[in-house]
C-alpha cells in the first residue's frame, strides 16, 4: 500500500473544510487564509492553487468575495462565509467529527492506539 498517496488523499479531502474554517472567524483575504492554513495545519500549500479553490467556493455561494481598500494598504479581495457556507461548514464539521470518532473507536478496539508516534 502506498502510504504517501493515502496521506495526501486524506489531506486533499480536508482542503475545502480547512479553507472554510479559516474564513469562519471573519473576513480574510487570500494570503491571510493561506497563512492561517499554514499556522493551524500541516498542509504545505502551493499558494497559487488556493485561489482557484476560493473562486470555486465563491461560485458555489459558500463564500462571498469583495474588493476592499483600507487606508494603509492596496485593495485586497476579502472572503467571508455566506449563510449557505456557514451551514455547509457546520455539516462538514459534524461529518468530520462523526467520521474521526468512529475511526478512533475502531483504532482503540484494535489495540493499536499508539498515535503521536509519527
Amino acid at each position, binding site marked *: 500500500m502506498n502510504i504517501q498517496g493515502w496521506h*495526501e488523499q486524506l489531506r486533499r479531502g480536508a482542503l475545502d473544510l480547512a479553507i472554510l474554517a479559516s474564513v469562519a472567524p471573519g473576513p480574510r483575504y487570500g494570503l491571510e487564509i493561506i497563512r492561517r492554513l499554514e499556522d493551524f495545519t500541516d498542509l504545505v500549500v502551493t499558494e*497559487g492553487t488556493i*485561489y482557484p479553490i476560493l473562486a470555486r467556493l465563491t461560485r458555489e455561494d459558500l463564500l462571498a468575495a469583495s474588493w476592499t481598500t483600507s487606508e494603509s494598504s492596496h485593495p485586497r479581495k476579502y472572503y467571508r462565509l455566506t449563510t449557505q457556507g456557514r451551514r455547509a461548514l457546520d455539516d462538514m464539521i459534524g461529518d468530520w467529527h462523526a467520521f474521526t470518532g468512529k475511526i478512533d473507536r475502531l483504532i482503540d478496539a484494535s489495540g493499536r492506539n499508539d498515535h503521536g508516534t509519527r
Partner: protein
Amino acid sequence: MELGEAGKSRVRGYLYVLERSLSSFLPRDVVADAVREIQTHIADRVGAVEGVPDERAALERILAELGPPLRVAQAYSAELTLDEAVTTGRIGPMARSIGHFAVNSVAGFFGALGLFLGYTAGVAFIAIAALKPIFPDNVGLLYRQGQLIGFGARFPVEAGQTIAGGYWVIPISIGIGLLVLVYTHKVARRWLAWFGERRQQRLRRNAVGS
C-alpha cells in the same frame, strides 16, 4: 522590500503568462479579477520581506511558493471552467474546457479529436438536410455503377455516379444529425467529468505537498 526595475519586470512577466493562459478558457472579467488577486498576493509577499540583500532570490522564492503561472492557470481550469461545463453542459464552457485539455495533454488532444469528429459528423448530417432543397440532384445516396458508396453531397456528380433519394433525406438527416450531436455531447460531458477529476486529483496533490 521595494522591488527594483528588474524585479518589477519579472513580476509583470509572471502575470502576463498567467493572464494569457487564463484567457484561453476563462471569461475576460474572471481573468482580470484572478490576475489582480495574484498581483495583490505578490505585492503583499514582497512587502512583508525585510532586510534581504538579494532581491532577486527573495522574489524567486515568493514566485516559486506561489507556483508556476501555468500550474496556477491549470488549477483555475480544473476548478472553474470544467465545473461549469460539466454541471451546465453549455456550449461555451464545454468548448473552452475541451480546447484547454486538447492543447495541454496528449490524452486530452486525442479525446478532443474524437469529440471533434463526433460533433462534425452531427453537423454534417444537418448540413445535408439543409443542402437537399437547394441542390436536390447533388444530395442523397451516392451510387457508383449501381453500388452504394456513400451518403451526402457531391459537387459535381462524376461520370458513372448517380444520386438517389428524395426529400425523405431531409428528416432522416436531421434525425441522425441530432442523435449524433446529442450523443456526442453526452459523451463529452462524461469525458470532461472523468478527465477533469483525474487532473483535479493531480493538481491537489501538487497543492498539498508531501
